[in-house]
Each structure stands twice: as structure tokens, then as C-alpha cells.
């Protein structure tokens, strides 16, 4: 389907998984992440923003996803209704031999620690380390100064280091 400059099918196929996972990082619930994912693309289709290149498309989609997730987290409904088995649908790595199990446990600790960060730190960590965005681009997505992005990244690393101290071999 295409209207004006928006080819919704291409966008969904190209960025759908990125948007879905980004939403999951915040909501930790597959169903809610899928709802947000759908809403993100429909908003884009309604607004028909002028996005000249793939970098702009990615930045726009991530910004809308983050904002929508925060709206969901702020809503009274979300605060009142918690999943019966939180994390149930989150896939877990296979357990192997003991050494591998320890390594997997360390990975799980790092993953959980990042997702447990306060939103302002999680925003920058996810965009920097998961989406490989430079700090200048992150500043545009979050609409904050670049220096603030760097400060938040530094503080996020400090927090993660403190949270993981003594629990993993080589702190974040």
C-alpha cells in the first residue's frame, strides 16, 4: 500500500522488528509491544512525515515508539493491570554446560540491569548500544542537547557498574 511518500508495507518489513523490540524493552509485554508497534506505523501513515532517508525514518520511528511506550507506562490502566506472568513470553537462552550457564546468567544480569534502568538512562543506552546511533543522532531523536546524551550515558554506565558489581566478572 502506498499513498504519497509513505510505503507502509516496506516500512513495516524494514523496521517492524526494530520497533517491536524497542517497545518490548519498555513494556516487557509482547501484546502491548505489538499494540504500540501497530500504533507507531499507523501514526506515521496518518501524518505522512517528510523523511528523506533511512536514517530519518529510523529516527522518527524510534522517537514515536519511545513516546508511545512512555504514554502507555504512564496510563492508569497500565499501572493497575500487571501481567499475570510477567516475562512469561520473553524467550530465554538455552542452558548448556556449567560454564555456559554462568555466562548466560551474566548476560541475563546485564540484560535485566539495562531494562531496569530509569527511562532517561534506558533511552540513551538502548539507542547507543542497541541501535548503534551516534550521540548527535540520539540528541535529535530525544530532542535533548548532545552533551546531555553523553552525560546520561556516563551516568547509566556508572549505575550499571554499581548494579552489577560483584555479580559479573567484568562490570559494564
Amino acid at each position: 500500500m502506498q499513498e504519497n511518500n509513505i510505503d507502509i508495507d516496506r516500512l513495516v518489513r524494514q523496521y517492524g522488528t526494530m520497533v517491536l523490540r524497542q517497545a518490548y524493552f519498555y513494556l516487557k509485554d509482547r501484546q502491548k509491544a505489538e499494540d504500540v508497534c501497530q500504533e507507531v506505523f499507523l501514526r506515521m501513515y496518518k501524518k505522512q512525515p517528510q523523511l528523506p532517508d533511512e536514517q530519518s525514518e529510523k529516527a522518527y520511528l524510534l522517537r514515536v515508539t519511545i513516546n508511545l511506550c512512555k504514554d502507555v507506562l504512564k496510563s492508569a490502566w497500565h499501572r493497575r493491570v500487571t501481567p499475570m506472568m510477567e516475562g512469561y513470553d520473553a524467550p530465554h537462552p538455552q542452558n548448556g554446560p556449567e560454564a555456559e550457564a554462568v555466562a548466560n546468567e551474566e548476560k541475563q544480569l546485564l540484560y535485566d540491569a539495562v531494562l531496569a534502568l530509569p527511562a532517561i538512562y534506558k533511552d540513551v543506552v538502548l539507542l547507543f548500544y542497541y541501535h548503534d546511533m551516534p550521540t548527535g543522532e540520539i540528541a535529535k531523536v530525544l530532542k535533548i542537547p548532545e552533551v546531555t546524551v553523553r552525560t546520561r550515558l556516563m551516568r547509566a554506565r556508572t549505575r550499571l557498574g554499581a548494579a552489577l558489581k560483584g555479580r559479573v566478572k567484568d562490570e559494564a
Partner: protein
Amino acid sequence: MKLEQFKEIADDQLRDLTVDERMVKRIHQGACSIHVRHKPRVPRAAAWCAAACAAVMVISGSILLQSQMRTGNIASPRAQKDQVTATYALQDSGSMSMLSSSVATSQYVDGTTLSYGIERIGEFSEGYAPALATNGLYGYVNEDRVWVVRAMYDEADEVVDGKAVVKTQGTTSIIDVP
């Protein structure tokens, strides 16, 4: 353990979390409904006239400011009976929204009078349309501009098969209309 490994770890954790054909279809269908909903439903002559004259409209040889016109010349079946005067705005999509009307706009379907009026009416389907109330919330009105669902939603979609999708405080629900 380095933070640089987070991407690899997260991709491994979420390897089953991908957009599948079901999601693609779901989003595609949503976009199709938007596409249909945004089609202008006013007569071409009225839309052309509004676009050409911007805020000034020429109806039946007389010039009326602020797009004020007799709805009998435009779309409303009720207006043809009652000669109701209303003010319309032309939206970017080409559709027309009623801004105000000379009919009572605070009337609820059971005959009671509500504390708010109609600020803007969306597009009708199945005899009902989402309407923005003067309290800033959305409800539904019938073709007589009478409230059939009280204005209490942040967003309201068009009626399909007697049901409508509404949103309040970030929560999406399906309600019966009326």
C-alpha cells in the same frame, strides 16, 4: 561483561520477537481503514469552492465570511428540512467539519441536556459520527446532532457494525454505538 555486548545479548533474548506476516497484515488493514476514512465525503463543488475561496465562500451569489453557509446547500439531510445554519471548516484531507450549528448541540438522546455542546463533528457512518465536545473529549452524535454516547473519550473512531474503537487514558476499547 561489557555493555558493548548488550546488542548481541538482547538480540539473543528477543530472537523470537519479530514482526511476522500476521503483524504486517494487521498494520496494513489499519492503514487501509485510515485511507478510506480520509476520503472527502462532501460534494466536489462545495469542496472546490471552499478550497478556492479559503475563508470566504460564495454560496447562491452571496459572499459569507468564515465559511458560513447554509448546510442545505452542502450535505445535511436535516438542513434540507429545517434550513439550519452551520459553520464548517475545510480540513487538509478535503473533508468538512461542522464547527457550530444553530440546532441544540447539548441534547442527549434520552432528552436530558448535557453540560457541553458539539465543537466539531467527524464523518458519519451507519448514522453516527464521532464528535468533539466543548469539554475537549469525544463522544458520538446521530444525524440529528443529538448525543448518543456521552463525550468522555480522548479519541473516537468511526462506527463499524454498530461498534467503535475509542481511547481513554491510553487504553483502547471497543464500545457499542449507540
